[in-house]
């Protein structure tokens, strides 16, 4: 049978002290490891980039193998707001409301040219980038970006999640960032 040790890619353990039956490391590394491998995305798919996201979640490209198997359309239960598609100016306050309703810790990824900067739609009705209304962590350029690029952006979000300080969401800089967008805590 071919079921021997095999060449699976396992997640590397963080730095720490190993002893028989014991592994000691800092709390933020463990929490970061756990969080980054179980990100629950909220797919805010508006247009064409949403179709690329559907392909990314499909079996061929499979975002689920990175832990994002459980999508949630409820912001309360989601970690990552994936904005994929053109956002009109009328939709801006709606996106801000969805972001406000997300529970900490939360991250935002802007997939595609329209979400990052308005894309080719430089007109009176399109919001020129969602970072006009919410803070964004990762931008994935492309029109639309291929699933491999969306996965690359997701991996960058995983790096951010894994390396985040535990008290970041209570820090002054974060409060100032939110206040800059008019999101009061």
């Amino acid at each position, binding site marked *: 049978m071919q079921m021997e040790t095999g060449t699976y890619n396992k997640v590397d353990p963080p730095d720490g002290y190993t002893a028989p039956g014991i592994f000691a490391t800092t709390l933020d590394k463990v929490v970061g490891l756990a969080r980054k491998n179980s990100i629950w995305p909220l797919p805010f798919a508006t247009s064409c980039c949403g179709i690329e996201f559907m392909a990314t979640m499909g079996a061929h490209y499979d975002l689920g193998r990175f832990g994002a198997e459980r999508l949630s359309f409820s912001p309360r239960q989601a970690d990552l707001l994936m904005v994929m598609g053109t956002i009109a100016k*009328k939709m801006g306050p709606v996106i801000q409301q969805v972001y406000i309703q997300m529970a900490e810790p939360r991250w935002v990824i802007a997939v595609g040219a329209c979400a990052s900067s308005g894309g080719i739609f*430089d007109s*009176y*009705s*399109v919001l020129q980038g969602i970072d006009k209304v919410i803070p964004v962590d990762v931008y994935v350029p492309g029109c639309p970006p291929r699933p491999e690029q969306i996965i690359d952006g997701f991996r960058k979000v995983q790096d951010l999640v894994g390396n985040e300080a535990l008290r970041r969401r209570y820090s002054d800089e974060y409060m100032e960032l939110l206040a800059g967008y008019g999101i009061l805590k």
Partner: protein
Amino acid sequence: MENSFIIDKLYKAFGQDILKMDTTSDILSFTVASPMIHDVIRFLKEDLQLQFGFLTDLCGIHYPDRGLPLGVIYHLHNMTEAKRVRIKTFITVNHPKVATVTDLFATANWMERETYDFYGIEFEGHPNLKRILNVEYMDFFPMRKEYPLEDPTRDDKDDRFFGR
């Protein structure tokens, strides 16, 4: 129902208010003086031989280099005889007021709101004339040919990439 039949009835009823008749384009199209537009549409709807009871479309247009630049275009349809007709009316930019047809056709409600949203044409008698597709704080009318196509509130564009 022939075009000539409709034209005859219209001229008998409204005479000099029918300004320009055009039978060469795809459907019968004519221009009406703007004070009479409500009566003309009502006549077309309620006359027993014409019976144009379906408002297909109501939209605005802006020709910036004409004497009467703003216009409202109506498309009426007689469903029993499959006959369509196009009615146009033109008004000035300084006094962009037209009578509403929401009392005749309920669909005109949102269509007139869209025309107001994009051209600034005010429909007198409309129950709820406010913007429908754009954000409510927008202070200009986008489809008038007075504004650049690009977003005027944007401040980070590099002129080198945009041919300026």
